[in-house]
């Protein structure tokens, strides 16, 4: 019958070397913890004792090596957790920035939209006296106002239109409003090209006031639109930073989780190796005891 020691030795625990795909420090182990055999090292010594000595040393080195690897992994895990905390804190700050710029951009966007509608209405008032430009300008103003209203209150979506389709309709109405307003201007310009200028009537003064209002509101709308664009860029950059920080946090968490898994693996390996070393030592001890018993039995038999 073969010795249990030989069996247990043949199934000695393998080492764990997970693929270092993430770039983290890989767990490396030597093929054996035993020292290189020196020629004639066992000469004059009991081989069983030498085996027990080396196995005991192997056991101690295995535990020490496992402990060291677990310490290293714990340090990696703590570093990853710290990075994760930092990334989450930066993400929160970036989200605050995004919220601020987003709110500011929304306010400026509202101002720009309302001003654009007012400017459109004022331009419509200025075309009074010419039927065709007036009608077209009214259509333009209505389209712009409808686009604005639906963008704010989502009437189309409330009527069952899908959000993307409603967005395209809003965009179309806005473009249509712009084209109609511009067309009304062109028609009005053509109609008034041959008109003679006379004394300013009350209607002309009203038109003058309308022009002034239209220009003023257009300036406000332009400034607000520029501010809206700038705030949108700032908000987008802040959102991008938040997303990047979220990605950093996920990456750090993945490293932390992987380190935790490796700690468990190394712990299991070390425990298994230690357990097997204890088994081998126990087997050697039993063999020693059997040798002694055999010697006693043989002595007893010889003495009779």
């Amino acid at each position: 019958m073969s010795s249990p020691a030989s069996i247990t030795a043949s199934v000695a625990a393998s080492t764990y070397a997970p693929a270092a795909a993430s770039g983290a420090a890989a767990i490396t182990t030597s093929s054996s913890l035993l020292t290189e055999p020196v020629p004639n090292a066992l000469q004059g010594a009991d081989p069983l004792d030498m085996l027990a000595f080396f196995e005991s040393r192997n056991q101690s080195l295995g535990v020490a090596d496992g402990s060291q690897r677990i310490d290293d992994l714990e340090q990696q895990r703590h570093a990853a957790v710290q990075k994760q905390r930092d990334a989450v804190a930066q993400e929160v700050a970036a989200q605050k920035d995004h919220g601020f710029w987003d709110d500011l951009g929304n306010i400026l966007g509202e101002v720009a939209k309302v001003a654009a509608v007012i400017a459109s209405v004022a331009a419509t008032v200025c075309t009074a006296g010419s039927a065709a430009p007036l009608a077209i300008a009214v259509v333009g103003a209505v389209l712009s106002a409808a686009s604005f209203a639906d963008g704010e209150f989502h009437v189309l979506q409330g009527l069952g239109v899908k959000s993307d389709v409603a967005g395209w309709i809003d965009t179309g109405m806005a473009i249509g409003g712009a084209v109609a307003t511009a067309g009304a201007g062109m028609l009005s310009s053509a109609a008034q090209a041959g008109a003679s200028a006379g004394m300013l009537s009350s209607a002309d003064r009203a038109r003058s006031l309308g022009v002034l209002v239209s220009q003023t509101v257009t300036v406000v709308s332009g400034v607000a639109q520029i501010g809206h664009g700038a705030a949108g860029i700032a908000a987008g950059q802040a959102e991008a930073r938040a997303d990047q920080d979220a990605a950093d946090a996920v990456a750090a968490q993945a490293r932390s989780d992987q380190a935790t898994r490796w700690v468990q693996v190394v712990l299991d390996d070390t425990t298994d190796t230690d357990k097997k070393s204890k088994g081998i030592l126990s087997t050697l001890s039993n063999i020693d005891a059997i040798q002694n018993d055999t010697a006693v039995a043989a002595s007893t038999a010889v003495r009779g």
Partner: protein
Amino acid sequence: MTTIQTPVFSSDPYTQLAMMATQVDEQDRSIARETEDTADAAADESEQNRVAEMRAKAQDAESSALVSGITGMAGGLCGLVGAFVPSGGEAAAPDASGPAAGRVAAGAASLSPLGRALDAGSRLIPNVGGVAAAVYTGNAGNDDAAAAQDEADAQADLRQATRAHDDLQAARSSLDKVTQFLDETQQSENAARLAAVSVRG
């Protein structure tokens, strides 16, 4: 791949059985370790892909905001400049009743060609920018979906790694039992031999 070798150096059936069990357990352990390593590496790769998709989403969101913001600013600038462009009517009759009358006669609706272009640009450019930004927004949505898929893949790989780890532990436990069985068998044989020797003595 490890193959099960037929034990040849012992005719004891218990020993042969134990050796075969040991080899099977060893093979199971090796496969489980290999599976665990592979699943762990796959999970790590999936997590890296997820992070890459999240970064791509961030870049797309930034690009969308840039396109939308720049075109919005351009539109606003057009509107701002357009408000100061002289009307077409002024140029047509500058000396009839002065600048004020000219502006009144022309009105806001009778803008010069440049004014009309700027007015149209102030409305069209932001909308065109919105359409272009929507492309980036769509890409960001795709990146988000891909990141979610990678996360699901990583979770699946982790579950597989956990199962493989459990299999590994089970194989170790089985090996321990075989070793214990062999130990007890040998102790019994030795005890019997000693007893036999003692009886003879």
